[in-house]
């Protein structure tokens, strides 16, 4: 129990994600939006360049798409991450994991550790750049992810979940 005291979630109080997760979300969403926007815009760009006759409509569509992309970027980079961060809470208690999340549809999960089948930590390139990792807790009927914990916290949480999961008598 001593070594797990560094885990901020050990107490009964709820804990939040690492604040750096907001940057991770921003980068992630920005990449997605930019890629999708490029995929949508390129065909019309080709039309605009290749078409001999008047192809002003393609320019209009491109303009609309750029506006849409910018609007999405503003929403996903400026507005959503802080709200999402504020709404994301989890609590690791002695024998269960509790997660609250969601902005419009708020969800409140209770996942007993004895039902957990496996846990793992995942780290994509963006998360790694920030020194973060996400923990995935899988039950026999679906899995849950806690994104953005400091790497050592994530490993502690994973080990704790794995240890408690091992105590489960029977799986399904």
């Amino acid at each position, binding site marked *: 129990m001593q070594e797990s005291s560094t885990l901020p979630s050990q107490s009964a109080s709820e804990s939040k994600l690492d604040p750096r997760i907001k940057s991770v979300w921003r980068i992630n969403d920005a990449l997605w939006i930019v890629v999708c926007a490029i995929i949508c815009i390129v065909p019309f760009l080709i039309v605009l360049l290749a078409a001999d006759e008047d192809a002003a409509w393609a320019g209009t569509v491109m303009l609309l798409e750029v506006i849409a992309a910018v609007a999405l970027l503003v929403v996903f980079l400026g507005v959503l991450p802080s709200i999402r961060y504020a709404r994301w809470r989890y609590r690791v*208690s002695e*024998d*269960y994991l509790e997660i609250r999340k*969601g902005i*419009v*549809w*708020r*969800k*409140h*999960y*209770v*996942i*007993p*550790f*004895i*039902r957990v089948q496996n846990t793992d930590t995942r780290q994509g390139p963006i998360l790694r750049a920030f020194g973060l990792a996400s923990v995935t807790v899988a*039950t*026999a*009927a*679906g899995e*849950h992810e806690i994104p953005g914990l400091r790497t050592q916290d994530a490993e502690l949480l994973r080990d704790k979940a794995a240890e408690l999961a091992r105590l489960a008598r*029977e*799986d*399904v």
Partner: protein
Amino acid sequence: MAATNNEGARQHVHHSYIWLGGLQAFFIVVVAVAISAMSSIIGFIAEVGSRMSLRDAMAVPIIIGLAALGLLVLFGIVVATRAWSYKHLYYEVGPSEFNVYSGIFNKKRVHVPYQRIQSVDQKATLLQRIFGVCSVSIDTAGGSSNKAIIIPYVSKNQAETLRRELFARKQWATQGGDAPMPLPSNAPTSAPTASATVPGTANILDVGDEAWQQVGGVFAGEAVFTGTVSYEYGLSNKELLLSGLSGNASFIAIVAVVVVAVLQVVAGLFDLFPSSSNHVVEMATSMAAQQSAPVIAAWVAGAIIAVSLVGWALSILSTCLSYGGFHARRRDDRIEVERGLLQHQFQGVSVERIQSVEVRQSFIRRLMGYCEITLGKVDAGNDSEDNSSANGLAQRGVVIHPFVKKDRVPEILRGLLPEFAELPDEPIAVAPVALRRGLIRRCLWQGGGFWLAVCTLALQLLMHCLAGIDGDLAVDDGVVMLGWTDAIATGLYALAAVLLVLDIIGSVLWFRESSFAMNERFMSVTNGGFSTVTVSFPRNKIQFGYTKTNPFQRAARTASIHARTAAGVGGTTVRLIDAREADALAWLDWTKPGGNRTATAER
């Protein structure tokens, strides 16, 4: 009998795998070839038929002979490959796991730890039944992509032995036995006279089933003692017939009849409209149309009704046949259900693998006061060769009674599943505000009638606008068009109103009947409406629970509760919308480990 003692020995499947399976594969190949070569064969025959000379007539037997030879060679090849793969298909009942080996070039070995076995089923087609063989499929809980392990063409005796062995070893492994398992004794420890058969549960088709039991099949082998039956029941004549009558197909048939009748009435109405225009030509055409149209319409309507009635009769027949010889029994610590007069199906699931008990009442069954009981279990990913989907029986889980009076449910559960006897009986109703929210949700957002009316209105307005734009081009055509449009729209509005009324009744019923309940070991959720479903499941089968709220629910202080179990393929969520917020929070506390003790202490 000797097969039980050879732990770890290779056991091959029955040799009918070669010839019976080969025959089946051969027919598939022949049909495929025939279909692909159909046009050329027909062309050839037509050509020969047109200019038949003596020489051609001589050639015909030769050609037929060649074709027969080709088929024979093909059959030989198919059987040879089956024989080859037969040599490489075997299974082993090992000390800690069950292994199936297969494949000629690509070797495949499937390991199944005994603890992971969910259920052992067996299935036999008509041909297989005659020869006394069946396919055994073993379900494991292997995530979402898990497939059942199928051992094809095993003799009945071998299958029973295998099943007993697997369940015994599973129980042994679950109890934590590390030592080699004691061999099960073949002699029954107590004579199976203790079976408490419910009286008066025999039906006509049981005679056929008994005949099957007597004949057994050519290679069935002698019966194997697999455990003591403590409770058993079948279906009475009435239950068998009514389960066929009240199935889903009958609902579809009734709907079809109603729709056709409505269409007839509407068509009758439409006949009035063309005559409102005074043109001679119009009159003439409409006269001609009126002469023939009702006759045709009547014919079409009659044909549709006839087809749906025949379909209904067929579905009743197939349901009766597939539930013929239905028996559900409790044998030691597992539940076995077998059914099917032509295609035999046997499902066996051990009690601790049962995820939920579902009591389902479709609308028709509800009117009669009957229901269907299904056990939820972890299902294997379906393989498409499942024939049962054809006759509407592709249900998930194990149907332990297709048609039973509602008040007999506790009695059956007590007998078959004493573990599930103490289900919670203090239902917690949904919040009072749920009625208003349910009406809005079901009648507006999800209401078919509402959206039908909206779409009709939009179309009607659009038509009127279009008619207004090119108004003076063809005034009379426009008037006729608008007349038609308005008539159709009126019909659709009437339909929408009927649907809306049904939605309202459905929401009120939902509100009055929906509830959830929990006690120390179980939870049950009832979702009402025209058809009601009550799902009960033990607390330790809930994988996780969650509440979900949207802004409106937060304003109304309600929450939806969701309990997720591993039943079905990849899990099932049992949902109740709009429980009181306090109740939902109490339930969430109850799902926490140890929460059942504190929750019951408070009461």
